[in-house]
């Protein structure tokens, strides 16, 4: 059993042990810490030029194997997963039932599996495995009254369920269409070879790409399939909100970059598909940006902002150039860390203050200087301030997108880039306003917030530190991505 298998099975095993009655806190935290160490070990192995890959066939016809392989993209996502897992575990308060630990480990283990497997069957399967605890936790332990959270849980179950099934149909169609002479296979490398040897007609590629875009897009809250996201994050228990918005949601983007772009290059470049994607991502940035500005509560504001920021990543994917894709990957990582940080703070505020409405709060900085600083990190990262990770990603996406085919004239993608830049301004408006309303000004009576205990502080500093380090040296991630080849445009 190699490193990558351990990365997947340690969280799952820890979840099983806790489910069997062992103490949650100790096991969950040690598993999370061990996982981070192993990810770092895997990254150093990868940088040293070792191939980390194993394959265990589970079915011959169609060929399905439990196959894991690490490259820069999957290791970046694995690092994100383990970082957010640690932070999420540290947010689980004393006296919470074991299911909090079990669910966070299952979500992280599932996400790990989805990011590390190179067989479409397991890639899809692990994502679903992570999705189930998310849905159950929102339904059972979500915030708000029972009827309301049930309704929201059903909404996202139906949205994500239908999205996953459309995705499954698209993936099945892909596997059938790219059948090599040796018989059906779910192995990405074999499918890639087949796509190279016998390219599919553009029309076929376009419609399969569309199915994948709708399926993956629903999972990432691509406009107009986004309406599940904001209420879900506002309702979800804090660790679940952190893990889903920070990590699991990135699966859809990961899938597009890992499967759809390389296997269906003509589909991605198809005129109609590209136009549609651009209009949808403009919807994400502008429409949801405006919606976000109007939010009066921190949780729905963060939920909507997370939907909005997906627009930038889609822009990178739509552009399809190497710079834009790398930017999108950095942004996936950076957004994951920054939104997890913000949701962690949001959860603490909800617990201590009992309300998240801007009109009822203010002046929190007086008693919680540490949280004020952390929130500043989250806010500035979210806006895309230079020096924090998100900036590096956004700049690369914008440059890459603007650069694409600019010599052929000014197209929709360039308009989308310009509108995206306006989106940054909108982010600044709502995030800074929220920051000011919550932490500065006159202290509202009856609400008091203090700084957290040391473990929580450490976990938050970890996230903020990563934002800073990657922001100052984006080369840490781009170095991993240098050999990553997405199909040539």
């Amino acid at each position, binding site marked *: 059993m190699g490193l990558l298998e351990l990365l997947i099975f340690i969280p799952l095993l820890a979840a099983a042990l806790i489910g069997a009655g062992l103490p949650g806190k100790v096991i969950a935290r040690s598993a999370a810490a061990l996982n981070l160490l192993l990810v770092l070990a895997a990254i150093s192995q990868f940088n040293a030029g070792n191939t980390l890959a194993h394959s265990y066939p589970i079915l011959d016809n169609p060929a399905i194997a439990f196959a894991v392989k690490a490259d820069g993209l999957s290791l970046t996502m694995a690092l994100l997963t383990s970082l957010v897992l640690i932070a999420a575990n540290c947010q689980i308060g004393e006296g919470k039932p074991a299911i909090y630990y079990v669910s966070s480990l299952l979500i992280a283990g599932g996400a790990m599996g989805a990011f590390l497997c190179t067989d479409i*069957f397991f890639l899809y399967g692990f994502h679903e495995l992570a999705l189930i605890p998310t849905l159950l936790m929102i339904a*059972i332990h979500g915030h708000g009254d029972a009827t309301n959270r049930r309704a929201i849980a059903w909404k996202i179950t139906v949205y994500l369920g239908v999205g996953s*099934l459309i995705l499954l149909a698209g993936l099945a169609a892909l596997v059938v269409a790219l059948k090599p002479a040796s018989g059906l296979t779910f192995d990405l490398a074999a499918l890639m070879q087949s796509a190279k040897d016998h390219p599919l007609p553009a029309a076929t590629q376009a419609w399969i790409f569309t199915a994948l875009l709708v399926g993956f897009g629903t999972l990432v809250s691509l406009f107009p399939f986004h309406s599940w996201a904001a209420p879900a994050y506002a309702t979800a228990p804090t660790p679940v909100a952190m893990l889903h918005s920070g990590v699991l949601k990135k699966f859809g983007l990961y899938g597009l970059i890992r499967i759809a772009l390389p296997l269906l290059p003509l589909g991605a470049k198809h005129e109609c598909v590209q136009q549609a994607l651009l209009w949808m991502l403009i919807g994400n940035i502008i429409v949801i940006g405006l919606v976000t500005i109007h939010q009066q509560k921190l949780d729905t504001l963060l939920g909507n902002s997370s939907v909005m920021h997906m627009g930038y990543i889609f822009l990178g994917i739509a552009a399809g150039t190497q710079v834009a894709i790398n930017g999108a990957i950095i942004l996936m990582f950076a957004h994951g860390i920054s939104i997890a940080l913000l949701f962690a703070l949001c959860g603490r505020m909800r617990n201590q203050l009992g309300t998240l409405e801007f009109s009822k709060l203010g002046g929190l900085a007086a008693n919680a200087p540490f949280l004020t600083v952390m929130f500043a990190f989250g806010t500035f990262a979210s806006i895309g301030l230079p020096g924090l990770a998100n900036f590096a990603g956004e700049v690369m996406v914008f440059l890459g997108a603007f650069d694409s085919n600019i010599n052929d004239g000014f197209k929709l993608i360039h308009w989308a880039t310009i509108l995206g830049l306006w989106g940054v301004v909108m982010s600044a408006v709502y995030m800074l306003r929220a920051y000011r309303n919550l932490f500065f000004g006159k202290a509202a009576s009856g609400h008091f917030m203090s700084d957290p205990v040391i473990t929580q502080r450490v976990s938050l500093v970890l996230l903020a530190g990563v934002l800073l380090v990657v922001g100052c040296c984006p080369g840490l991630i781009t170095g991993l991505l240098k050999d990553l080849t997405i199909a040539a445009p």
Partner: protein
Amino acid sequence: MMSSFSIEIFLAVVGVLLIALDAFATELNRKVVPWAAIGATGLALILMLTRSADIPAWITPFYATDSLAVFYKVFALVTTLIVLIIALEGDFITAYFSSSEGVKTRIGEFYALPLIVCAGMMWMASAKDLVALFVPLELVTVSFYVLVAFTRRSAMSLEAGVKYLILGALSTGVLVFGIAWVYGATGSLSFEGIAAAASKPTTNAMALMLGAALLLAGLGFKVGAAPFQIWIPDVYQGAPTPVTAFLSVGSKAAGFVVLTRAVQAFTGDGSQIATQVGNALLSAAALTILLGSLPAIFQTNVKRLMAYSSISHAGFMVLALACGATGTVAFYMGTYLPATLLGFLLLVVLRTQGVGDELKDLAGLSKRSPLLAFALAVAFASMAGLPLTAGFMGKLLVFMAAISKAHYGVVALAVVGAAAGFYYYFRPILTAYSPVEGESTKLQVSPVARVTIAVLIVGVVAVGVYPKLLQSVLK
């Protein structure tokens, strides 16, 4: 070393002997009947796995021993074994509802009849012609008439028995009528002969089509394919739960094996009616999936929910059949077995603890028995087709078969059905895991039930992550 044919004879003989034992033996000996039935089935399973390939020469014209037959024979034995364990688990409930007030009636037949049914199902799996199909089919069906109405003090069971009897008899009539037409059109009763005649231009296609339609209608009734699925919810809900489990897994599988053989005969190379039969099956599949999935959304009774679920599963299997993927049908059946039997076993265990089968009765189950709640989650997750459970593999293969035949419309409808499944299969899981006030006594689960539950959970997960276990049937 016994041949599969002798194993079937053995089971039928043991079944009859046990009925006699139950009728004439003393009170003490009667307690032996359930365990004797379980032992005989287990022994038959072992014999089946170590069988000799030789069968008497005189029987070969109408008795097949191909891989399809062997798979379904083992399938029938495993099903019967688990059903008998489920029946034993719910023994006192069956006894209570089948005897008059204050009288303890013997219910040995309840354990003996499944052996006879099992022999019939195993025989059906080998049917090479329409007579060899019809005789064991009736053996199975008639035994089920008794079993469905067995708990005679329960009005629902009686109602279910009457409905099943009337509709079952009607479908038998239709089936025989179909057989007659097919024989008239092709001059042959064997599937080989029918396939050969179907491709001859001299055969009257209209007559053959009418025969095929009637035959498929009769078999469609047995497997619960639309539009012949109306009886399922009432009968499944009314029948004693072990019998429901037997009907929904064993009887359905037996129906599918003969359906597979009949469809293969009608859609062979150059068959004049291949297109029509294919289209009929496709429409039936789409209709069955929808008529199973959509009403299931509104169910508040778990047993009835599982009845609708079984209709929807039948739809997926008919879809695979319509795509000519007979291996996939068998594979799907293999994934359907552990999850469904686990579901019914849980219902029986809960019933013995005074927990009803309404959805709301499941509230707080995770507190009262973590094992049962987890098993429930696994069973329904597999039925919903969540990845890494057996159910997902089955659905995936069906989707792939349909996509490779370019039946995109039906795939879209199947996606709708599967999406509805996310709702109605998740509701019991959610209810079981929701914290509630009120009843919180711990539930007792007998050791036998614990072991069976564990084995079935392992089965669901093992097939889900290592489908090679069922690989042989795909060839």
